[in-house]
């Protein structure tokens, strides 16, 4: 039986111990890159999604009346002009770049979050799970000490002989990990409510959606037993990412299975930023020595690319 004291000690160890900032700061760089690419990818269709008047598919005024309750939406306080609309996007792109390089990191992350939520509230009709994931992760990043390593802020501090403490509280990393696990757990629970995932036919249908297809994998999805194996494997891996990833001995095998699942989905289907943000979040589950190992392998690979 678990005593209250043991529970409190476990809670404290889980949320209040300290850890090296390598994983969090490496994640910031990758996550910041996707935030930045997200902003850049909005530029060409900007008039259509966020423009003013009949240039936009969702008029600005409609976006205000769509929600009854309070929502963060900076457009409400700005004048309804093309300039204001562009200002929001340009500022978002600039702050996401600052998040990536770690310049004025905390304030950049806060501004980036407010602008991202505002843009998503401005046009809800184009949002996919990648947008939702980025927004939820960015919320937690506002509270995380992501500037202490691999950042311009850290470089400037070091030059002033006041380097950041790189041993940080694990709290925000834990919350990011829990958010990450919840995505998998929730999607597993939603899938178990239906019958296609339970009877093993779901991947048959998803693989035949022409609109989503990227590379059509031959044979794999042409036999009922392979389709069932793929469906149940995907379901089990998602369940494992939401639960078994927390078991020390199973963490690495579960992460590798999850990575393979996402890469396979990314190769065969086109579904925006979701797969990439999920893959970059895996870094939060790695120990510093594992990240250094990856970094060393990456460095070994770089000269090879240079020679080629």
């Amino acid at each position, binding site marked *: 039986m678990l005593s209250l004291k043991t529970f409190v000690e476990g809670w404290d160890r889980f949320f209040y111990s300290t850890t090296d900032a390598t994983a969090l700061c490496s994640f910031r760089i990758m996550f910041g890159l996707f935030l930045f690419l997200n902003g850049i990818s909005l530029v060409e269709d900007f008039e259509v*999604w966020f423009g003013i008047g009949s240039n936009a598919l969702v*008029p600005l005024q409609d976006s205000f009346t769509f929600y009854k309750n309070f929502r963060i939406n900076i457009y409400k306080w700005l004048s309804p002009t093309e300039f204001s609309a562009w200002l929001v996007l340009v500022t978002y792109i600039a702050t996401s770049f600052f998040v990536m390089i770690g310049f004025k990191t905390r304030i950049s992350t806060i501004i980036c979050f407010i602008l991202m939520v505002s843009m998503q509230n401005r046009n809800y009709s184009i949002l996919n799970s990648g947008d939702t994931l980025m927004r939820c992760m960015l*919320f937690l990043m506002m509270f995380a000490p992501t500037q202490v390593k691999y950042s311009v802020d850290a470089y400037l501090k070091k030059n002033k002989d006041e380097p950041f403490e790189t041993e940080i509280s694990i709290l925000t990393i834990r919350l990011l990990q829990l958010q990450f696990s*919840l995505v998998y757990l929730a999607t597993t629970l939603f899938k178990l409510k239906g019958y296609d995932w339970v009877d093993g036919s779901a991947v048959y249908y*998803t693989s035949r959606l022409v*609109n989503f297809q990227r590379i059509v994998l031959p044979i794999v999805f042409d036999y009922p037993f392979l389709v069932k194996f793929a469906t149940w494997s995907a379901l089990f891996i998602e369940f494992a990412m939401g639960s078994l990833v927390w078991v020390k001995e199973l963490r690495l095998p579960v992460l590798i299975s999850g990575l393979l699942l996402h890469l396979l989905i990314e190769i065969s289907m086109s579904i925006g930023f979701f797969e990439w943000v999920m893959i970059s979040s895996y870094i939060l589950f790695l120990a510093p020595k594992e990240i250094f190992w990856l970094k060393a392998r990456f460095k070994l690979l770089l000269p090879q690319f240079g020679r080629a």
Partner: protein
Amino acid sequence: MKRLSKCFLNMLIVLYLGIIYFSGVPETNTLNTRIKKQASAVALGIGIWPSWSMFAPNPIRFDSKSFVEVTYKNGVMKEHDVEIEPKGPLAPFRKARWMKYAQDNLRSPNQKGLLDPAIRYFRNKYDDKANPIVSIKIKRKWSEVHPFSNHSIPSISKTPRIEKNEILITKTIGE
């Protein structure tokens, strides 16, 4: 850490976890349903509303496309895909947005508010001063995937489909 601030922090952690859990997972009982309402309101307000029902509870079984049919004064009729085909390295991300808009939301009975602005937008886009538009239709065409069978399934590249279409809105200009 001071006891009071730790207590406050613990409360915030529990509150945050409660919000993301109850707003993010499906309802399974009455209590869960009631809490989900409150949790979702807070999640929407602070910008952490979830949407994790990816290809669930069942994946869609059809490919859907939306089209704009424009009739000009001289009787010429033209059909345009609502989606554009983006080019460049960021094309997949742009395409994902167009797909969400044209394939999921524009056709949805819960999103009928999108149709009128779409009519205005496409009228503006395809109008010809010398030969004005007299009528615009937004319609969708979809093809259902042949049902799954435990015994044998058609090859991924030769799966039979059932073609269907419906008109979402028709607008005669000058109405």
